């Protein structure tokens, strides 16, 4: 005989459960209205010809075949975006980690430095993009002036398709404050006993860094890496403002191309197909990283 004592929750527990559901309801409703609903709609749009003004005409797979077979710009924007992601993400992580290490020193006034280092993140993207545009200007830009003073060759940074993407990589470095502050928080939370124990065992600075700091930081490196890749694939504002995708489409990044299709040409269906392709690409990257995480991310024993 199976035991019939299946535990029925008491009235208090049931009240608690309903309260819990009620508290999370705003998020759940938002999830349905602003995530699941739009995602479903977006799949549907991607199979149609749709401008907001007219109705949606079913096209079947036409958008996707056009995209993969006929659209030269699709391949180019994908190339531009991968180029940017592959250079920018590792570089930003590395520099952010170094900056966090530097900011973790315990000296008087360090909090002022921490605040100052975060300032670039606060600056409106438009303002910083335009400032960078000035600094890299071929005619009156400071970058060229400095290069010239040092006897180095100068470049027409924003008009030479071969190097425009590099300008964006350099500009991207300016926004590392966000990940640096997360690393900094992590560095401060590494249990001190670990360092003390290692010190007693005679481990030197490098060993402690290599075998305590780095492993303890891997969850945050992972966190910054995953979100960094997702964010960097969606690079938009700088290119929109400074170069508008030029010259010769060399800074036409994927989301900028998507934006142009959706909001300049009102090809909402085609843009939705673009969005789904990017989504799948990012998803593949994320899943690969989650799989790889087991190999290098260090988690403390479950608490």
């Amino acid at each position, binding site marked *: 005989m199976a035991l019939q004592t299946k535990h029925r929750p008491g009235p208090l527990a049931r009240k608690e459960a309903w309260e819990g559901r009620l508290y999370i309801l705003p998020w759940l409703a938002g999830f349905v209205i602003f995530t699941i609903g739009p995602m479903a709609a977006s799949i549907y749009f991607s199979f149609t010809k749709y401008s907001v003004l007219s109705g949606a005409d079913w096209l079947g797979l036409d958008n996707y075949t056009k995209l993969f077979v006929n659209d030269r710009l699709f391949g180019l924007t994908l190339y531009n975006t991968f180029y940017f992601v592959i250079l920018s993400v590792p570089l930003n992580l590395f520099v952010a980690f170094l900056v966090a290490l*530097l900011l973790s020193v315990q000296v008087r006034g360090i909090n002022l430095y921490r605040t100052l280092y975060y300032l*670039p993140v606060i600056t409106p993207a438009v303002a910083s993009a*335009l400032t960078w545009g000035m*600094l890299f200007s071929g005619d009156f830009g400071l970058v060229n002036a400095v290069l010239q003073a040092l006897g180095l060759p100068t470049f027409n940074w924003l008009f030479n398709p071969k190097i425009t993407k590099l300008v964006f990589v350099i500009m991207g470095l300016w926004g590392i404050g966000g990940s640096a502050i997360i690393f900094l928080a992590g560095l401060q939370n590494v249990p001190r006993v*670990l360092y003390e124990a290692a010190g007693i065992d005679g481990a030197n600075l490098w060993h402690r860094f290599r075998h305590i700091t780095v492993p303890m930081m891997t969850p945050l490196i992972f966190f910054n890496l995953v979100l960094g890749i997702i964010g960097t694939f969606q690079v938009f*504002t700088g290119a929109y403002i400074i170069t508008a995708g030029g010259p010769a489409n060399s800074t036409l990044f994927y989301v900028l191309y998507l934006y142009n299709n*959706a909001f300049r040409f009102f090809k909402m269906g085609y843009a939705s197909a673009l*969005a789904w392709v990017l989504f799948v690409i990012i998803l593949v990257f*994320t899943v690969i990283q989650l799989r790889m995480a087991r190999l290098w991310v260090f988690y403390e024993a479950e608490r």
Partner: protein
Amino acid sequence: MTETSAEVPLALTGGRKKGAAGLSMSGLARLGLYLFLSLVCLVLLFPNIWMISTSLKDSPQIFAYPPELIPRPFLWSNYLVAIQKFPFFLYLRNTLVVTGLATFGTVLSASLVAFGFARRRFPEREVLFGVLLSTMMLPSIVTLIPTFVLFTRLGWVNTFLPLTVPAFFGGGAFYIFLLRQFYLTLPYDYDEAAYIDGASSLRVWWEIILPFSKAPLAVITVFTVLSNWNDFMGPLIYMNKPHMRTLALGLQFFRDQRYTQWNYLMAASTLTLIPVLILFFAAQRYFMEGILLTGLSGR
């Protein structure tokens, strides 16, 4: 150990103030450290410095080559001109409305939702929290177009609604996650005692959880204010009418003339930066403390 003594990074020393392995620095090393910190700081802040310097120059000096850092003379009047060149106060008001409402909505709803996830037990909790975490990895671009269509159909374009209403629906998975991680660290005994006294859960949230959460709430407030104040794509898509523009969006229209008036543009940029700068400095202590307290530290 005196207060002024400097040390190499915690991560590099024994992590103690001055321990067996802690390297206490000599005066010279400390000086070198400050110099290095300042040098990196200068590099990082250089675009900001350039922005401010440009905002005070006259037009010929902007295009001088080689470029000059110090304005000659300091044209403070550029700021007055900049304010008149575009409807600064209207854009400021729009920005304040959007940022204020969105921040209020985010902090309120994220803390309620996090309370539900951290302090109330219900059967679906873990599954739903997993769903919430996975949405953090969802690129926002995939929902952009249908959301735009939805708001267009609702007639919300050129109103504040598209930029503020979504904030009241949890305010973003990341913030809920941060707060939930923090709430989990608070002992349940306080809640228990309040419930025994007959308090409602809403009261526990308001009178126990919130007062303990000043630092993490400060972090979320700063993050939300920054992201809304500086948001570009949202206003770009939803605010087509000039009178609805925010500051971050309005700045770029300084370039719509035949040539860019860099000094006025940079003056306006500086003006846009100042309010968030003040907020950030004011919240700085809470902000740094909060970053350390929240689940940001990993795991």
